[in-house]
């Protein structure tokens, strides 16, 4: 086996095992920093010894054992925490325990880690960052880049969150049943937030930040795997995969946003759409609907329409009605208004936009939505005014290019 193969094996193990190892070490020591450091040490050791000794049969077990031993060494050297030492020694020193970690066993530790990262006593941005650092192994520098903040700021944020978990006694556990629904909602919310930030970047040059959507998809996959009985987890994964399946067609060669109806549907990832629809079916079979399943159903209506005019808009309006029962927010009402415009004509849609507009003051997509509906209604002057307003508040360069193009088209008429 050559060095490149070994490096690929280590990279694959990192992707699959990092979160598992960190979660296990935190469970055994209660020390988040120690867990991260020893997990990193284990991967460094793999890079050193695997080229010589070959890749072990079960890389995950090898890495976990190495990381545990490293933790044990460090704690011994620091003569710290008799309790921690006992906990670690109970597993790391028993030869029977080495390499007997079930690779697909119940992942209690990762699940506990996930809920702890997403504890509502932590700031939202800290929750996302902590989940990325501990579960996916992104470095602090990578997370900082992804959120467009200086590395020092992100490092401080992570240190502060970990300190609060330790000092304030945030329990490392899956919450008890009475708190579970709300806390699961918070976990799904963190993943959704991460994806949205990547899919419609609220700042920066690009329309999308693929590194964020990629990590959100990974986390969503992990959450769905860890919560197999939670249809909303499946629904969220289906939703994100449906969006991702057409991500490549959302941006034109000039970097401008390409709206749904102009996207090249031949380039949508059919296999991905089929897989997502299949996931969604499995979620719906549980007969416990929820906002992510409904949003996935709406996304699926678009994904399965061969041409824009084949879209079942009346059905989308009905799905938005159901969604409003869970999330009665003005943004959902605005999206519903667009569906109404497509189903019943722009005038009907505009009336509904007007109804919700007072609650959406300052929302950048309000003037953009109005502009598009006015254009469809043939009210060119009013549309141009709204496109100008939208341009002034657009979040990123991709949206600005799209709006500028529409405005130019109106001016050219």
């Amino acid at each position, binding site marked *: 086996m050559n060095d490149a193969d070994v490096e690929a094996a280590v990279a694959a193990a990192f992707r699959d095992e990092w979160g598992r190892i960190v979660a296990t070490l935190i*469970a*055994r020591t*209660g020390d988040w920093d120690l867990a991260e450091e020893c997990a990193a040490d284990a991967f460094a050791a793999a890079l050193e010894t695997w080229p010589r000794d070959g890749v072990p049969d079960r890389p995950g077990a090898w890495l976990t054992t190495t990381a545990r031993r490293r933790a044990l060494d460090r704690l011994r050297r620091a003569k710290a925490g008799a309790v921690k030492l006992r*906990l670690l020694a109970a597993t790391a020193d028993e030869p029977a325990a080495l390499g007997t970690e079930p690779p697909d066993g119940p992942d209690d530790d990762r699940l506990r880690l996930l809920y702890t990262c997403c*504890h509502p*006593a932590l700031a939202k941005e800290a929750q996302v960052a902590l989940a990325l650092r501990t579960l996916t192994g992104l470095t602090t520098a990578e997370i900082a880049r992804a959120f467009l903040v200086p590395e020092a700021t992100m490092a401080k944020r992570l240190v502060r969150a970990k300190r609060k978990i330790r*000092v*304030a*006694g*945030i*329990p*490392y*556990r899956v*919450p008890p049943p009475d*708190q579970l629904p709300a806390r699961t909602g918070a976990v799904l919310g963190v993943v959704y937030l991460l994806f949205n930030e990547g899919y419609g970047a609220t700042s920066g040059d690009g329309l999308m930040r693929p590194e964020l959507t990629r990590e959100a998809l990974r986390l969503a996959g992990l959450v769905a795997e860890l919560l197999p009985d939670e249809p909303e987890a499946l629904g969220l994964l289906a939703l994100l995969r449906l969006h991702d399946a057409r991500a490549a067609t959302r941006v034109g060669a000039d970097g401008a946003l390409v709206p749904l109806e102009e996207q090249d549907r031949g380039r949508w990832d059919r296999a991905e759409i089929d897989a997502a629809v299949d996931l969604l079916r499995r979620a719906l079979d549980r007969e416990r609907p929820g906002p992510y399943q409904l949003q996935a159903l709406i996304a699926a209506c678009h994904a399965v329409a061969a041409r824009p005019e084949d879209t079942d808009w009346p059905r989308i309006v009905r799905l938005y009605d159901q969604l409003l029962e869970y999330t009665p927010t003005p943004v959902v009402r605005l999206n519903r208004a667009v569906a109404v415009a497509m189903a019943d004509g722009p005038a009907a849609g505009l009336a509904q936009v007007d109804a919700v507009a007072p609650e959406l003051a300052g929302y950048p997509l309000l003037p953009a939505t109005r502009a598009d509906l006015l254009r469809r209604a043939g009210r060119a002057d009013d549309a141009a005014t709204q496109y100008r307003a939208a341009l002034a508040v657009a979040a990123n360069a991709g949206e600005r290019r799209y709006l500028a193009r529409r405005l130019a088209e109106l001016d050219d008429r």
Partner: protein
Amino acid sequence: MDTMSQPTRYLLLISADEDLAPEIVSDEGLHRFHEWFADLERRGVLRAHEGLHPSSTATTVRVRDGEVLRTDGPFMETKDQVGGFALIECAGLDEAVEIAAGHPAARFGQVEIRPVR
């Protein structure tokens, strides 16, 4: 299972708009308070608990350049003022939140939970 939980002490700082003080001494408010207190005793978590006189009776002391400065009133002139505190010892933040949320003043004021060193 929660392997790492060890009892933690928290100071609950209970604060509210002092103009709403009648709220807490109303029959309903007192009833809620007694329920809360009884719950704490059942849990066996209470280490100390006191209510305070209004902030208008407070004196704030600072030493600057060796001189003792006294100010009439609380250290921060905000609408909401600390009106009482409880020292509890419980399993972790989730239980502390549960306890804090049960205090009647949490309905119109707030309870700050501070872990004790």
